[in-house]
C-alpha cells in the first residue's frame, strides 16, 4: 500500500458541490492525479439525474449539497434498489467535523469522509484508502452500505448484530470537532 500508485485515468468521477469554485478546485486536484473524466453537479437533483443516467466510478459529495444535503443523498443512493450506482464509493466532503456528523455519514453509507478545506494530499490519501481497502457491503433492513463494523456498540443481551461481534463500551462524545486522523480512524475497518 505504501508504494502503491493510483490510476484514475478513464474513471468517471462525479464531484457534487454547490460551489463552482470548489468544483473547479476539486477537478484541478483530480486532473493533477491523472483523472481525465470528472463531471460536476451543483445540487442533489442534478446528481441524482446523472447517477440514474450513467455509471459513475466514484462520487465526491459535499455535505451541504442543496436542497437536502449530502447525507440524505447518500442514503437515497444506498436505499434505491434500482440505482445502478447503489454501491458506488462515496467520499463525503464536509467542513462540519463533529463526531456526530461523521457517525451520521458512516451510518448513511458513505465510504469515507474528507475534511474541508481539502488539500491535494488529504484527497489523494482518501481515494487511495477507498481503492486499496475494499469493504464488504451489508444489506440489512435499516442499512445498506459498506460494512461499518469498526466499533460494535453493544446490545442489551451482549450479543452482536452479526456472528463474531462482541459487545464493547463506547465512550461519550468528546470535543466539538475531529481532526482528519480521527475521522479516518472511524472508518478504518478493524473488528473488535
Amino acid at each position: 500500500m505504501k508504494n502503491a500508485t493510483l490510476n484514475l485515468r478513464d474513471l468517471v468521477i462525479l464531484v457534487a458541490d454547490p460551489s463552482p469554485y470548489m468544483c473547479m478546485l476539486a477537478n484541478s486536484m483530480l486532473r493533477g492525479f491523472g483523472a481525465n473524466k470528472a463531471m460536476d453537479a451543483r445540487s442533489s437533483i442534478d446528481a441524482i439525474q446523472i447517477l440514474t443516467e450513467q455509471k459513475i466510478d466514484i462520487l465526491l459529495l459535499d455535505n451541504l449539497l442543496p436542497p437536502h444535503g449530502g447525507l440524505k443523498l447518500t442514503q437515497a443512493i444506498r436505499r434505491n434498489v434500482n440505482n445502478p450506482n447503489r454501491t458506488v464509493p462515496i467520499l463525503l466532503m464536509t467542513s462540519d467535523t463533529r463526531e456526530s456528523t461523521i457517525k451520521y455519514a458512516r451510518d448513511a453509507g458513505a465510504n469515507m469522509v474528507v475534511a474541508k478545506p481539502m488539500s491535494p494530499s488529504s484527497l489523494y490519501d482518501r481515494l487511495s484508502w477507498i481503492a486499496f481497502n475494499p469493504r464488504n457491503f451489508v444489506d440489512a433492513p435499516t442499512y445498506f452500505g459498506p460494512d461499518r463494523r469498526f466499533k460494535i456498540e453493544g446490545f442489551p443481551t451482549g450479543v452482536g448484530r452479526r456472528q463474531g461481534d462482541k459487545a464493547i463500551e463506547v465512550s461519550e462524545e468528546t470535543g466539538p470537532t475531529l481532526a482528519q486522523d480521527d475521522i479516518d480512524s472511524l472508518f478504518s475497518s478493524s473488528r473488535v
Partner: protein
Amino acid sequence: MSNSNGAREFPVETDFQKKARRPGGVTRNQAVGGAQAQIETLKDEFTDWVKDGLKRLQSAIQLAETHPANATLIEDAFRSSCELRDIGTTMGYELVTFVANLLCEVLDNIRNGADYDKVLIRCHLDALQLARQDSYRNVSPDQVPELCDGLRQAAERSMSVAGRISK
C-alpha cells in the same frame, strides 16, 4: 452470508477499486505535485472568485437580515461563508480564511438558535472586504492582531452568550 436479523454481508469490488489499482498510476508525491501545479494555475482567478463569493455572501446576509427567522436564508449565508473559507484555505489566503472561518462559526451558532447579531456580522463583512484587497493578500492573521483579536473576541463573546442562553 446472512444472520437472524436479516442482514446480509457480501463482497463488492467496484470499478473504482479495479481500475484505480491498474498499473500505470501515479505515486502520492507525483499526484500531490501534479495537483499543486494545477491549483497554481488558478491563483490568478482567485481575486475574482473572492470578489464574487463576497458579493454572494453580502446578498445572502442582506436577505437574512430582513428575515432573521428564515432558516433557509441563514443556511445560504452559512454556505457562502464556508465557501469563502474553503477557497481561501486551499489557495493559501490566510486572512480571508481566518475571517470567513469566524463568520462561519457565528452563522453556525445562529443556525442553532442563537440571536442574529447584525453588528457582529457586519464587522466580519467589512473585515472580509479589507482582507481581499491586494495589499492584504499575503498578510497572515498574526500580522494584524488589532483586526483579528478584536473580531475573535467579539465572536467568542457572542458564542458564549448563546451558549449560556441555550443552557
